């Protein structure tokens, strides 16, 4: 069996976001790039099945040349080979999902893991799109997973509203979105990092994969969230500060 993992390179969450002068994107000069945190859970989920399912784990990323660093990281963690998909112009979720799906289909993977959301666009869509293009079922958010005895399917826990957990069973092929709590991602070991340099990393062009499929969402303008006007900050006698807060809640914002 082959297992696919989808990883995206994103700015570290502590990065200060600065917009470009034309407001059409962000300044990338001082950005520290990392593997999307949820994708680390996806890599770990795939690696835990590598042995039990005698699986080859193939990691995919669509992104610019620097995305190779993230693929090397996944290889250092233990993935077997990597595919980078080059896109000339930025793609929306629809085109990204279509390109990834075609690459996955060509690789022969039957189970695909990704993150529940990429922390740059915070979209939470690409995995569902990949699944639909492949005509596979998908659980977009999973925080527990086990493969059935006989290796013919998978049971996952999907967190829903109100603290409810939905226990979902699926056959293969399937796409699974990984959430915090699913596992504890490993760190790449030193020998792992050395070995990663020798592992195969191939490149594909999104143009070739997409065959005419084009984006359907256009980003028009970026902006920064308005600064909140400085609030009040009080200190002093507990009785008195509590009363001031109650007055504010009651008279000014009227929530009580």
């Amino acid at each position, binding site marked *: 069996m082959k297992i696919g993992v989808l990883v995206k390179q994103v*700015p570290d969450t*502590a*990065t*200060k*976001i600065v*917009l470009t002068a034309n407001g059409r994107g*962000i300044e990338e000069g001082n950005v520290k790039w990392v593997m999307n945190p949820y994708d680390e859970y996806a890599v770990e989920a795939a690696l835990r099945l590598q042995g039990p399912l005698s699986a080859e784990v193939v990691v995919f990323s669509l992104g610019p040349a620097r995305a190779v660093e993230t693929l090397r990281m996944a290889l250092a963690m233990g993935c077997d080979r990597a595919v980078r998909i080059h896109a000339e112009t930025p793609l*929306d*979720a*629809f085109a990204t999902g279509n390109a990834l799906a075609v690459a996955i289909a060509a690789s022969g993977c039957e189970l695909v893991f990704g993150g529940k959301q990429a*922390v*740059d*666009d915070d979209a*939470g*869509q690409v995995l*569902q*799109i990949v*699944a*639909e*293009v492949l005509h596979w*079922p*998908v659980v*977009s*958010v999973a*925080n527990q997973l086990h493969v059935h005895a006989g290796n013919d399917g998978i*049971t996952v826990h999907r967190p*829903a*509203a*109100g*603290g*409810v*957990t*939905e226990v*979902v*069973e*699926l056959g293969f092929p399937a796409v699974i979105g990984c959430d*915090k709590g699913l596992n504890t991602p490993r760190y790449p070991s030193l020998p792992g990092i050395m070995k990663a340099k020798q592992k195969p990393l191939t490149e594909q062009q999104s143009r070739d994969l997409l065959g005419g499929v084009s*984006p*359907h*969402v256009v*980003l*028009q*303008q*970026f902006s920064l*969230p308005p600064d*909140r006007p400085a*609030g009040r*900050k*009080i*200190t002093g006698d*507990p009785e008195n*500060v*509590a*009363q001031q*807060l*109650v007055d504010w*809640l009651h008279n000014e*914002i009227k*929530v*009580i």
Partner: protein
Amino acid sequence: MGNDIVVVCEGDAGRLKKYSLELVAKAAEMATALDATVRAVAVGKGLAEALQVVGPYGVTRATAIDAPGLTGHYNSDAATAALSTWLQQVQPMAVLSSTSAHGRDYLPRVATRLKTGFISDAIALTVTDGRLVARRPIYAGKALVDCVVTGSPQMIGIRPNVFGLPAATGGVATVETVTVEIAPPRETIREVVAAAQRVVDLTEAEIIVSGGRAMGSSDNFRYIRDLADALGGTVGASRAAVDAGYIPHAHQVGQTGKTVNPTLYVACGISGAIQHLAGMRTARHIVAINKDADAPIFARADFGIVGDLFTILPILTEKIRKVRSA
């Protein structure tokens, strides 16, 4: 392509979600600018009656979509198939939905079946040149982007609670039930496990009181619960509190927890790390209680109290109870 705006509503225990009703009202308000007619739909069993409530909010036509394979429980495969089959017949100009846990799961799938784009988690919606423009937070809310769907229909998911509910008028809705044929779902819902304690969905909550690492124990979280009860709100937490085992992960607010959008957010003993802010920065009013006057949370708070939460919370809770029972 028709000129319908379809609003996908959700229900629970036979009642329409408040965020769905808000979306219906918002769509009705925008319909003139788009020269469109609004239709409300809901997918699943037993929601036909619940849809009646859209009438007073300016929408007179509603459809309950049923299909063999739909049960009382959400099934991603079945919901996707049922809604996309119906939308393929109706061919609306736009589809609006909420990015609730279920909405954010299956609407991207529906959009892909319709070969169009979906914008998730919008926090504002306007009309420019006859097209919907959605504003959504990116980079954990550190930036915003305005975007449009160039495909058809224009499909947009809106974060729950961003629009208020206008006053109801006298309208009456006609609700039809339509049954569509779908392929049998490939996913089986083996079980639906309720939370140990009923957690009101944080993403829908109007008032949230959250505790951080400073709480020190799960027992001490009673200070947070008591205040939340007094305010009629829901309990949230920082990751540090969750990781320390004081409270289950379902309560976590932030980048790796829930994104919330309440009217009032009270952060107690929470420092205000960027990943926590990512989950609550769009709250309309933010209150912080922290003993460190330099805690970053104060830069976000409309009302900050510098002091010891263990002294302040019981007094505050008592005073709020008095005001609310007066």
